[in-house]
């Protein structure tokens, strides 16, 4: 069986790819139909959906039975949020992640001139 994290990703992808909100049964059928994946129990899909709902990635329409789930926002918007953490001017970024290039102040320009002058 897939780790829960991978299943969450597959469920999200199925929801993003679908124009309409989906029920757990729809999702089970779509995921089970995928190449290389085993038969999924509907309870597993429901567990994954409730985890995703708790974390704020999907919502469900409460007026219909069975419940229909949809992503809170598009894949592109989630990607933008992610990239904002990485590339945006968030003040606490250095405490959160270490980027390969960037995130430095004016003072370093002066520091560089001194270093190169004093060699």
């Amino acid at each position, binding site marked *: 069986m897939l780790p829960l994290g991978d299943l969450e990703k597959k469920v999200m992808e199925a929801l993003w790819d679908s124009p309409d909100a989906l029920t757990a049964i729809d999702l089970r059928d779509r995921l089970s139909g995928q190449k290389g994946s085993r038969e999924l129990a509907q309870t597993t899909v429901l567990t994954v959906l409730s985890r995703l709902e708790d974390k704020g990635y999907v919502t469900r329409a409460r007026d219909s039975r069975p419940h229909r789930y949809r992503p809170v926002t598009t894949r592109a918007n989630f990607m933008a*949020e992610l990239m*904002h953490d990485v590339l*945006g001017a968030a003040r606490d970024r*250095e*405490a959160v992640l270490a980027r390969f290039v*960037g*995130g430095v102040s004016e003072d370093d*320009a002066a520091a560089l001139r001194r270093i190169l002058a004093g*060699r």
Partner: protein
Amino acid sequence: MIGAAALLGLLAVALAWPVPVFLASASWPSRSPATALVLWQAIALAGALSMIGALLMFGLAPFGDNLVHGLQAFLGSLGDGTLPPGAHFIQLFALSAALLLGLHLALNLAATVYTAERSRRRHRELVALLSSPYPEQPRTRLLDYDAPVAYCLPGTVRSMTVLSAGLIQLLTPEQLRAVIEHERAHATQRHDLVLIAFRAWRAALPWFPVANLAGEAVATLVELLADDRARRVVSDRDLADAIRLVRDGLSAGDATIGASEFEAEGPASAVRIARLDGRVRPLEPWVSALVVAFASALLAVPTTLLLLPAL
């Protein structure tokens, strides 16, 4: 004890202003980032220790002739509600200030760690949903994103390296390996712990120039350290080229995020390239040894002053 309190106070002032200003303007740290990082940590620790220690020693002076006796007598006084002769309001004020300052620093550290962990958890979830595993590299994820981006997301239990499709397209396999080694060095050397401690210090003492200077200096130093670690397995040329390419690629801009809040070129990358091009000499070993000895002395002096019997 008054003598020790006065010396600690002097040390606290020196470490809060002239020493960090002097160090921040020195040119040698990029020649030996590890040594400089040791010194910055010693300055921060010794500074906090002498600040709190000075207040504590001054406040406890009427209660006893050293820290332990003073504390015991003070707790006794709290119990029976009487003050020894020579104890004034000002001593109680100093003791309260010591207590509040200690709590303030500890709470800020806890809050900073908590906030960063929360941001990281959300970020890790998003990466898990939006990326795929990068083949043949453990704990490395690939984001389908055009801008050339690479970063390390540290964690208390697990850390991961995240690369973008744009980066893979931009770099040769050797340059890509240099980037991965650099990011992995951040994780294995636990740079996040140093950065978060200085971040907390900055949050706790925003009005002290020292905290800002130290925070910026330390952020640059860990980049240099990660470069040095990567250089053990990749060539200087590949790493320098990777830095140039990613910097220029990022400067080209990004449509997802507004240009105004987009921050690309960092002078730290220029320092890094200068080192990799061989334009910065490493520090002589005896100078490094001297600096480390100075850092140890910085820590030993306030500790001794605090523990010494009456001075």
